[in-house]
């Protein structure tokens, strides 16, 4: 039998996502099914609002929680089984993006008079087939392209400052090297301009 050791909640809270998954796998292997619960609670609660709010950007409130719930259940299950790719958070958001894209496409295809939900709403267990579509999804694609055009240091600035929580001075310090606060503002400004430029170009 596995030498599984049950951890208290405060210790579990300090574990990273992938460590929590590993803990749940160990608990499951040891037959300690109840020990899985607190780890699951920490993981689901930790990302619940983020997922719901991401869904709310593109879906009505009535559908956002469904998509968030399906996403996190699917992400945890696939991570649990070793079918996920890369780190948990990134994998979960990839699933979320695809679920939204599929949902969006299905809703757009569905005539307003059709009474039933689309048969394509559930993509459990397989990679969703629909490509990104819709203006809001196209905008995200433009943002990602603008980001990918940057070198690693500048991407880090964007992660820390534009799309992260830090003020410019702190982002400059964390980025290291000779990065100054003024540099951070310049990089951010260029990134925003390039993003908008791609967006205004349309689908080209």
């Amino acid at each position, binding site marked *: 039998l596995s030498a599984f050791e049950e951890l208290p909640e405060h210790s579990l809270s300090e574990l990273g996502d992938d460590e929590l998954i590993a803990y749940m796998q160990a608990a499951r292997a040891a037959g300690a099914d109840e020990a899985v619960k607190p780890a699951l*609670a920490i993981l689901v*609660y930790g990302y619940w609002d983020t997922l719901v709010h991401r869904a709310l950007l593109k879906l009505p409130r009535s559908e956002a929680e469904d998509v968030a*719930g399906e996403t996190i259940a699917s992400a945890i299950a696939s991570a649990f089984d070793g079918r996920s790719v890369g780190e948990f958070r990134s994998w979960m958001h990839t699933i979320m993006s695809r679920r939204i894209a599929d949902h969006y496409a299905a809703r757009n295809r569905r005539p307003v008079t059709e009474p039933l939900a689309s048969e394509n709403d559930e993509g*459990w267990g397989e990679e969703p087939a629909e490509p990104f579509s819709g203006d809001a999804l196209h905008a995200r694609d433009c*943002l990602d392209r603008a980001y990918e055009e940057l070198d690693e240091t500048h991407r880090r600035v964007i992660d820390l400052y534009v*799309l992260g929580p830090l003020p410019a001075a702190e982002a400059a310090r964390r980025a290291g090297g000779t990065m100054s606060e003024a540099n951070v503002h310049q990089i951010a400004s260029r990134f925003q301009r390039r993003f908008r430029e791609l967006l*205004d170009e349309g689908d080209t």
Partner: protein
Amino acid sequence: MADPQQIFEEYKAAVEAGGSADPQPYLTFVSGRDREQLIALIDAYLERAPRREFDPLAFRRSGAAPVAEAAHRSLTGVGGLWPALLPRLRNRAHVRRDQLVDELAARLGAGAQRDKVGDYYHRMEHGLLPASGVSDAVLEALGTIVGSTREALRRAGELPAGGGRAAAGGGVFARMAGPSAEAEESPAAPPRLAEEWDEVDRLFRGR
């Protein structure tokens, strides 16, 4: 019309200050391309957000609690993602469980065994029934009722989310009026003798 970058900064500031991260109120300030720009910025920002610190009280009050419970049933049961999926599909279709069971029994031609169908459906929602035994006829009927497909339901149920072991759901098993509990406690257990089975057993456990 407001500047999307400025609105985005306000959104970030509200989130960092511990406020609600609900983006919808912020989207009302912009339209057209500006709105698309704002949506993409918030989306990318949320995607990078770290895991929130656990708060047991807030967890119990949040929509995360039933999701975690369903995920637990999936991970420790034998029904793949059905515990997470089936209740949501049912809710989305605005069908109460008793209504669903009535219709499922009728569609399966088992109206006289409605309670037995209900017990089996209960097991499906709780991850206590191996998907491999559930017939296409059941999934077809269920898909029609909740607005899904036989294939999608099959895929979800057969995802090896759990380790192939049924949860120790004593309370659930104690409620069963149909097939024996011990036969379900281990998916690997041999089926009961054929003569003890009826058509409903075959539909849900015989595939």
